[in-house]
């Protein structure tokens, strides 16, 4: 059964130096507050996993928390580049960042294999691309039934997955609705999981289409109102597009970023 914890306690207990950590969220419900708590607690040497590392990963990378990134699209959605990510890849600042690069389909299937308890997943993709040449976790495989040449990708099983959701009850049952991305797969693939929620309620109202992660599939739940801002939580608040645009100027400059970091860490 999931334990109800504070954000600081949850991160302190579940995220350790050197862990493989996935913070998932596809534009919607990005666990931004949890990412900033990891920065505040000064974790180092993390392997960060995420299909679409956006500004919270730019922050984690700029703060020097990560030594490796496994991803499929690293940008500031609708705005442009992630400058801290670029700086780390191109100049090793503040620490060198190793990258393991996939397509969305590859990443999604790696989580599916992880959640399914299988060692790998199979997809028809990557053929002819240069991704297969540079990523060791993309290998050709022959279908044993038809002889077709396909691609195998290994399961992703993070040490800990963190996602954000709308609601949980006091038992730790989680309701999440709207764009659900790959969050369910990422939680089920992980050894441990932390779900931050907008609110913890006495009783969950049944809600059509609400994806429920049952309490026994989640390690810990923390109540973090506005925990996805500047991304959004359907039913609670909208995406703050201006904040995404404003991040561009902060992240472009090491000094500006340093000021931002000092404020967050304080």
């Amino acid at each position, binding site marked *: 059964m999931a334990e109800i914890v504070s954000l600081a306690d949850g991160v302190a207990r579940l995220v350790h130096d050197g862990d493989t950590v996935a913070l998932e969220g596809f534009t919607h419900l990005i666990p931004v507050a949890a990412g900033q708590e990891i920065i505040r607690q000064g974790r180092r040497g993390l392997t960060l996993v995420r299909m679409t590392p956006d500004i919270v990963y730019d922050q984690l990378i700029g703060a020097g928390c990560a030594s490796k990134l496994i991803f*499929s699209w690293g940008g500031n959605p609708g705005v442009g580049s992630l400058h801290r990510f670029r700086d780390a890849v191109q100049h090793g600042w503040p620490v060198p960042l190793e990258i393991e690069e996939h*397509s969305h389909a590859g990443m999604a299937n790696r989580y599916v294999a992880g959640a399914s308890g299988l060692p790998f997943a199979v997809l028809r993709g990557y053929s*002819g691309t240069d991704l297969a040449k540079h990523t060791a976790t993309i290998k050709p495989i022959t279908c044993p039934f038809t002889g077709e040449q396909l691609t195998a990708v290994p399961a992703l099983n993070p040490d800990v997955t963190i996602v954000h959701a709308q609601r949980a009850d006091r038992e730790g049952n989680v309701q999440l609705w709207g*764009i659900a*991305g790959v969050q369910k797969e990422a939680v089920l693939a992980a050894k441990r999981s932390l779900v931050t929620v907008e609110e913890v309620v006495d009783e969950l109202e049944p809600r059509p289409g609400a994806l429920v992660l049952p309490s026994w599939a989640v390690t810990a739940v923390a109540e973090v109102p506005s925990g996805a801002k500047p991304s959004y939580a*359907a039913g609670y608040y909208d995406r703050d597009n201006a904040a995404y645009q404003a991040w561009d100027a902060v992240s472009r400059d090491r000094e500006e970023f340093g000021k931002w970091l000092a404020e967050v860490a304080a």
Partner: protein
Amino acid sequence: MSSPEYSTDEMMSIAAARALDDGMSCFVGIGLPSTAANLARRSHAPNLKLIYESGCLGAKPSRLPLSIGDGELAETADAVISVPEVFNYWLQPGRIDVGFLGAAQLDKFGNINTTVIGSDYADPKVRLPGAGGAPEIAASCREVFVVLRQSKRAFVEKVDFVTSFGHGSGRGDRERLGLPGAGPTLVVTDLGLMRPDPGTAELTLTHLHPGVEVEQVREATGWALKVADDLRRTPEPTEAELSGLRELKKAGE
């Protein structure tokens, strides 16, 4: 009838929108492809089915989304599904008619680079966002349309990195690799249209937008561009197309 005033970007979006037929299913990338697909749905193709990789199937946004996961897309979609489902159930089996992609670099065989600029992957000149959904869109949609502004920097003889496979090094490469879709069949730019040559698959200029000359396109292309024998002119944007596009853009602000 005097022709309306418009920009080259507007001509490009309108030309791209015209390429989409009513009733098609279209897998949409953000930026120019999303503008074109939404314009088509609001004009000549009201039953165009827009599919976004965030899991929005049949989205009907009233304004341009800033990102592929905007709430507007989910709220107006026929269904919202998980990301593994989008790729495994919808894209991979070839259920999507057209994939609409942008690019940082495009080469003469329609191969797309959105990963790195520079020949050394480990030490790139510029690190770009990466693959996202594009490799599978390029592999599995029945056809791929690419839309981007034309320049020597973007239109190169050979891309620095093949993120998404076009026609490889010529006709027949896709079949040899077992890729199910037809690959890039149309490239729309601010200067004209290109299509792969039926024999060699090399991108060939087939249409010039109004006011553009062949020399201008050649100057903005990084290889010796071939021109179709029956080179045509793109029809001017209509008042209705222009006002549709401007309304859409305005609603997105």
